């Protein structure tokens, strides 16, 4: 990504009226957002009993991701820090409830009531300190601990994130683990730089003990597990390696020769070492019978 909105301005300023409208009127963004939220909903793995759930959409923006939730019949509460984005959401008459809130301040929601949470391209904003009072570590902690509290037992939270680098990914993941979540990162299309999408899949409560992270998608639409491949590479030696002949140091039968010895002796002399004088025996080959 050439320019990251996170490095331009804080979210409530970057997504002003103009930018919010641009964001929502771009059919490309709308489509990407819909795809991402569909995938997030899939990863959320809600029980398929046909009963609508109460979900949380963190960083809901203009409600693009919420629409996917509504289409599936779920009720949702969306929160965002940008009033302009929320205004657009109101104009678009989204079905969920909207809150103007900062996720870095913690979520003011009663414990154990939410059945699942999704967040599309939002959590990486927490890694920025936009005000002098902001501390990314503390804000991430406040966010994840309050989220852990409000989720019901066994509920999942899926965040699609664009971490800027490995450190940022670690920072987010560590904060989540400290809050008590289990889970990990699912990477879709790991080999494509453009289509590559990362999802943080977190589970809370008892079920999280044996929660396994689902596999990411690959080009063919088949799931592929990136972790396994990495492990294989690290732990087992490839067969081709085993059969490659071992490199032997070259041995020259004739030895180093008189010239070489003379050169070395000169070198040592120049360095001021005590060197035996050159005679007719210097560098001469011994007789065979020796």
């Amino acid at each position, binding site marked *: 990504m050439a320019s990251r909105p996170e490095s331009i301005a804080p979210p409530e300023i970057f997504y002003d009226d103009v930018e919010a409208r641009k964001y929502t009127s771009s059919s490309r963004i709308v489509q990407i957002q819909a795809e991402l939220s569909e995938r997030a909903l899939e990863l959320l793995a809600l029980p398929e009993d046909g*009963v609508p759930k109460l979900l949380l959409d963190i960083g809901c923006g203009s409600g693009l991701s919420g629409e996917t939730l509504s289409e599936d*019949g779920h009720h949702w509460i969306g*929160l965002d*820090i940008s009033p302009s984005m929320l205004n657009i959401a109101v104009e678009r008459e989204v079905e969920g*409830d*909207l*809150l103007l809130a900062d996720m870095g*301040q913690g979520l003011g*929601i*009663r414990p154990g009531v939410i059945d699942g949470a999704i967040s599309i391209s939002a959590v990486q904003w927490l890694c920025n300190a936009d005000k002098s009072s902001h501390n990314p570590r503390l804000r991430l902690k406040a966010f994840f601990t309050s989220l852990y509290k409000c989720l019901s037992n066994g509920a999942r939270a899926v965040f699609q994130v664009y971490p800027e680098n490995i450190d940022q990914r670690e920072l987010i993941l560590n904060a989540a683990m400290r809050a008590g979540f289990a889970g990990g990162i699912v990477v879709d299309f790991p080999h494509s730089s453009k289509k590559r999408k990362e999802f943080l899949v977190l589970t809370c409560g008892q079920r999280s003990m044996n929660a396994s992270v689902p596999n990411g998608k690959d080009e063919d639409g088949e799931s592929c597990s990136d972790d396994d491949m990495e492990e294989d590479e690290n732990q087992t030696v490839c067969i081709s390696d085993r059969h490659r002949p071992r490199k032997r140091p070259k041995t020259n039968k004739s030895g180093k020769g008189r010239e070489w010895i003379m050169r070395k002796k000169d070198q040592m002399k120049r360095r001021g070492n005590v060197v035996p004088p050159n005679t007719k025996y210097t560098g001469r080959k011994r007789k065979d019978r020796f």
Partner: protein
Amino acid sequence: MRLLTHNMLSSNIKGVTNGFPLRIEAVKVEEKTVEMNTDFLKNMFVKIDWKVLVEASRTLGYAELPEEGDSSFLESDEFLSRFHHALLELHLEEGALICPETGRRFPVTKGIPNMLLHEDEV
């Protein structure tokens, strides 16, 4: 904002131990009809704080809910439709939510409560 959300929200100010329920100051209330889903209502009933819902719906001018909520009521269609109306169809459009402990006002405009905290409240 629906009362469903109100029933989930609590004040998040630093030092507040019990920020629930937020008191409602209603200026403008709207009603929007939504399709009823009994399964959802039955699931939500367990999670809802009934007293708070009754209180809140009265503030918004709807007094049809019984004082005490009991899961046996869930069999009655009439109860369900009232519950549904209070929970999902009443919208607080303009007004404020007030923290029960500190009295801090969270203004509600266009149906969106402003829950942003000042720096000294985090």
